[in-house]
């Protein structure tokens, strides 16, 4: 499984990478905002996208919309991991077609739970 982790803070990308590795995913690529992530997604064969919301350049919500609007990427599962925790934001992300939403600070158990849930849904 090839995963793209998008966050403007390198520390958070490292944390997520370490957690994903613990769960058993090791094929991980990083990007620091939506505009650098999108070409990677378009030209790569990613199976999963983990993205932050608040990033300079293209924020995560825009990236999510761009992914859903792209014929090639429309079905790519997207997990949002973000400190944005306003009710209206979570609703906006749901409407834009997010597959899971984790609020920071989070823990390893939550990440595993959400990943399992997303994969379970995809299989059914």
């Amino acid at each position: 499984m090839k995963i793209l982790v998008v966050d403007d803070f390198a520390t958070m990308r490292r944390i997520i990478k370490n957690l994903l590795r613990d769960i058993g995913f090791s094929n991980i690529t990083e990007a620091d905002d939506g505009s650098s992530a999108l070409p990677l997604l378009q030209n790569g064969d990613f199976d999963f996208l983990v993205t932050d919301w608040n990033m300079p350049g293209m924020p995560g919500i825009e990236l999510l919309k761009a992914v859903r609007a792209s014929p090639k990427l429309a079905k790519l599962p997207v997990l949002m991991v973000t400190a944005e925790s306003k009710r209206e934001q979570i609703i906006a992300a749901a409407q834009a077609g997010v597959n899971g939403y984790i609020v920071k600070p989070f823990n390893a158990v939550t990440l595993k739970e959400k990943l399992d849930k997303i994969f379970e849904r995809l299989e059914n």
Partner: protein
Amino acid sequence: MENLERNNLLERIKLLAECIEAGNEEEVNRILDDILQKREHMLFQELGRLTREFHDALNSFRLDSRVTELARDNIPDAKQRLNYVISMTEQAANRTLNAVEGTTPICEKIAAQSRMLREQWANFIQRKMTAQDFRNMSRELDSFLENMSADTDRIRENLSEVLMAQDYQDLTGQILQRVIFLVNEMEGHLSRLVRNGSAQTPHDPTVPPLSFAPLAPKTIPDKPSAEEAHGPFVPGVIPAEEVIHNQDDVDSLLSSLGF
């Protein structure tokens, strides 16, 4: 212009000298009054100019209402954000130190036990061991191996705690970025005020003339849309009721939306 005035003054003084020599007291008084009056007039003119400039400077303060807003709302907000950053970094440091302090004794215990077992094992290899010592060693080895699994689990747990504690760098970073944005904006407004103030002091041709052109619009709109990023929740800055505080509430909101 200055030349003309100097010539004028020179003319008058020459005339004054002539009148004094001729003993024309009346004319002497008239010329002296004239010169003094001109001097007074210049003084009043200068005073008028200063008053106007002071008035303009006051107005420019009023025009820049964003400065008032920054001082009234944003600076206290920024202070609250910075205080929150201090408490978050303190929490992260404590989390990390607790995990380290919890791990060190486990490592010390494993080191001490393995050292002891190694000595006993060396005795066994050298055939210096009684049957009773051998039985003791077997028991110790058994309990060592049994505990090892639980100990490594705890070490892993503590390492994971250290890993997760580092999320403060992202969260405080997002809060600090907002404060930096505010400081930049404040700097822009203040330097504009200083520029406007100094443009009105005379004898400085290098300063550009006064301008009341509005500054660039704020990048943080007054009423953010649902998609505007706010950064992490900061108590006292972001209204608590607008924010969902834990993952369970996020999950139940999403499930109410059919997720």
